């Protein structure tokens, strides 16, 4: 139904330059010697130490590891909501390791969709408005935004809940709304941080299957961070992080 367009209407105004999505063969994400150090009580702690790897385009990749291993830190760096202490990060061969705050925001708006563990829907907005919300920066027409929201809600099977508030639907439904919200901007990359942690096992499997399906349908790459290895789908790539290193 939707394919990644080669020409984006959104033109950021600062350091960020639109990525040429026609670069065939380049991985969606490539990271080299990523190091992330936190200072806690004057003691430096390495959350990630020289982590390297890549995320293939239009594939689902799982980042696994025990709690506190650094998998969420790697995911945050890939999602450009955190910066590495050192190392390089490329998304579709563009160096995005040191983008300014504005440029990082512009890049996220254009290329990255987020799915959170606690869904993080805006409680005062309806389901439809939540899905429309990321389009505010790029689509001026309210009717166009509404149309897109309906389209993506339909694709996750929730078109009939469009006027409900997040508080009026189940956890599984909220996560589906979050998936629609992540997809509505037609991103290059979807970052999902423990997307099933607050769901029962049956719903969790449904959500993972839905993400896997959406990856194919919308030509996007999906990175799922989870500590539950039972969710890993057959044939998916896996990056295992233990104590800040790739295992």
């Amino acid at each position, binding site marked *: 139904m939707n394919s990644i367009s080669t020409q984006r209407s959104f033109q950021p105004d600062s350091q960020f330059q639109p990525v040429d999505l026609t670069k065939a063969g380049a991985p969606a994400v490539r990271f080299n010697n990523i190091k992330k150090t936190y200072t806690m009580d004057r003691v430096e702690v390495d959350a990630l130490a020289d982590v390297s790897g890549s995320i293939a385009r239009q594939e689902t990749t799982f980042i696994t590891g025990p709690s506190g291993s650094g998998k969420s830190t790697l995911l*945050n760096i890939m999602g450009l*909501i955190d910066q590495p202490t050192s190392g390089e990060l490329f998304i579709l061969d563009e160096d995005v390791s040191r983008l300014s705050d504005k440029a990082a*925001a*512009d890049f996220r708006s254009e290329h990255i969709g987020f799915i959170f563990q606690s869904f*993080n829907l805006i409680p005062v*907005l309806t389901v439809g408005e939540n899905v429309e919300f*990321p389009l505010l920066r790029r689509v001026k027409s309210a009717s166009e935004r509404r149309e897109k929201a309906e389209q993506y809600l339909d694709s996750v099977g929730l078109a009939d809940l469009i006027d409900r508030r997040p508080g009026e639907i189940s956890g599984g439904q909220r996560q589906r709304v979050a998936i629609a919200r992540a997809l509505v901007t037609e991103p290059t990359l979807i970052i999902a941080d423990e997307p099933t942690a607050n769901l029962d096992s049956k719903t969790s499997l449904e959500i993972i299957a839905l993400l896997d399906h959406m990856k194919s349908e919308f030509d996007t790459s999906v990175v799922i961070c989870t500590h539950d290895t039972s969710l890993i789908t057959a044939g998916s790539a896996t990056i295992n992080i233990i104590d800040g290193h790739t295992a």
Partner: protein
Amino acid sequence: MIWKIAFRNLTKNARRSVTTAMAIGIGGFAALLFGGFVTSIWFGVQTSMIQEQGNLQIYRQGYLEFGAANPDDYTIQGWDEVAALLASDPVLNQQLAVITPRIDLAGVAGNAQTGNSKTFIGSGVVPSQIDEMHKWDGWSIGQVSPASGLTDQVLDGVVIGIGMARMMGMCGPLNVADCQDRPVDEDALTEVETDFTSLVNDEAEITDLREGSVERPQLNLMAATSSGVPNIARVGIEAARPQAIRAIDNAYVMMHFEQARGLLYGDSQEATTLMLQVANPDQVDATKDRIQEVLDRAGLDLKVFHFTEVDPTFNRIFGMFTFMFIVVSIVLSIVIVFTIVNTVSMNVMERVKEIGTIRALGFRKGFVRALFLTESALIGLFGALIALSAAVVIANIVNSAGVQWTPPSNATPLTVQLMVLDNPLFAASVVGLLILISVVASVMPTFKAARLNIVESLQRA
């Protein structure tokens, strides 16, 4: 959508929003009522003064600077010709409602019956024209001053201050309420009779100008003519009226213009000033310029002044109340600022995760700032609407109650009119200011919200 989010967040925390809006509303309500009162002063006191003195006054050049030392050197000679000149100008003829002369004078007043005498300060006016001036209501506020108490036909009639009546021992004869006569000094009476009163009685020019004037309490006035010769008149007191300032009340005598002219200048057409009333207050400045132009063209050594240039009382009264209004407004603004800061800070604290989510979804810091500032603007607007509604209701109640107060410049009280909507610019300014204060007050917590670390925000429970 940003307005939608802002509005829904306010309704979500309805109790907090209402409390904050009420705080803004009460502050705005106080500012509107006090401002309405100050507006009322602006119109009311100004109207009173224009009714007494006119909008504009013409003096001989240098009178305001040096006239007090020697007023006779600074009189307008041939005032009637000047008045005719102004009245004949086609532009001024349309704008000027009244042109009337006034003579300011001072001297000694004495009551031969009681032996009391004291200095007086007074003015000579044309009664019918003064009464016409008292009807001026350029801003249509329904304020009219009482008639002067003098008539054109009674040339020897005077109106004196209550204090003057007391000093002269005339409270009883004039039936003045709450006024006790100064005790009669028998020795002084003898002395006065032999000096002052006998001088009056001997003065050949003194004639009773009205038939039957003996029925009125009488006063003898002595003043120096322009040539320095003492001149004396016997006048009949028509009424005693309170004056705004005690020192003036104790010495005030208002008399017919012809009486004052006879005392000081004889047949010469001289006057201290020409008072001019402009029908439309919006045309005062233009009229002033036109008058000066006409006077200069005629080669007259005269200058026209706005009444506030001659008498600074209005500016002082209005300045005092404006200053009070500013101080009160600042205090209210501080209260509003703290309330808003508290409310927005709580909103930010409760929505840290939402802020992190919005930022992660690709919105810049500016969007977060705009979101919270919009909420503050909305709450400011609600508060302002509460303030405006309450102020209009209370102002109507107060205005219909007919409460009176006496401003420092007035001898007679004015009816309190809280002019909230009568000055739409003021009401709109207060509403705008409340919204602005609400927005400005929330800048700090809003910027703090926008600077939150995205990862840490998303980890918040």
